[in-house]
């Protein structure tokens, strides 16, 4: 029997894989798949995070713009600067059509499924909470801080926007 033939027969006799070998192979495959799972989860979290940040930044911008409109309304009415705004010194809420600030409350904005409007009126809760604080920096300056909070897959999130309004109309 040639040497080659001998080794060929020996290989054949030493049957297939043992259970341990098979398990080790499966374990390696599984370990290899873990990063793929992690990446897929990350992609999902990131997508939902971008989505919520997009909504939150626009809601925060709305808060600042509504307060600015209230400042202008005071001017038009001939009322002193801060007449409407100073009711928010200890925190408040506003919505898109507010003429004056709403009292502070820990409630989420609702979205009307028909009109698509985010407000505190009828609708389904969105999970986004918006609170404002308007502090008097001086007699002619007010600092507006809008805070939007929400929860996503990874926990509590917050977006804050600050604006300064001046009494420049003299």
């Amino acid at each position: 029997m040639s040497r080659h033939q001998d080794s060929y027969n020996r290989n054949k006799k030493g049957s297939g894989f043992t259970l341990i070998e098979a398990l080790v192979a499966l374990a390696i495959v599984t370990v290899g798949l873990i990063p793929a799972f992690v990446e897929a989860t990350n992609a999902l979290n990131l997508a939902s995070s971008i989505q919520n940040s997009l909504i939150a930044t626009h809601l925060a911008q709305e808060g600042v713009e509504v307060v600015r409109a209230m400042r202008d309304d005071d001017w038009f009415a001939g009322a002193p600067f801060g007449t409407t705004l100073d009711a928010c010194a200890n925190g408040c809420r506003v919505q898109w059509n507010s003429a004056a600030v709403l009292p502070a409350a820990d409630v989420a904005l609702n979205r009307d499924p028909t009109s698509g409007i985010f407000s505190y009126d009828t609708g389904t809760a969105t999970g986004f909470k918006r609170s404002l604080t308007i502090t008097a920096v001086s007699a002619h300056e007010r600092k507006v801080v809008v805070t939007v909070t929400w929860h996503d897959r990874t926990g509590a999130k917050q977006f804050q926007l600050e604006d300064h309004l001046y009494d420049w109309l003299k």
Partner: protein
Amino acid sequence: MKKNQQQGFTLIELLVAAVVFTFVVTSVSSLFVTAMNLQRRASGVQKIEENAQFALESIAREVRVSTVTSGDTNCAPVDPVSTATMSIHHPVNGDVTYRYDRSTGTGILYRNNQPITSSDVDITAFAFCVSGSGTDKKQTRVTMPMTLSSTGGPSSRVSVSLQTTVSSRDLTTDLK
């Protein structure tokens, strides 16, 4: 004769091997499909983000320094409309008309009949809620509720609803 002595796989071994192979292939391919859908969702969200940001930001930028010439619109719950328009007068750009149109099947925003959002994103709902326009001692506010949806299969489609308000900086109309 020697050939007959060589052992093949037994039926059990073959079956076990086939089961293990099937298990591995199934899990890998389902993982792949899931990852593909997640990837599509992620790129859908990105497209929605880009389009919403650009459209709302460019409208806001122009509205801030303009006079809104179209009258107040009632934004109480109404039946979904497929078109909505808003006209403004910009001190430099002149008369500008923004239009939302979904009559072609895909909701798109236009500025003077030029599209400002991509057809890759369907704006399924939009409204210009104008209040305080004209001489009413109220600053003009434009509230824009918007729902955007990415195109694609149901498992990878994403829909985002958002809203923002912009108030005009124009004092000349009401300060007379």
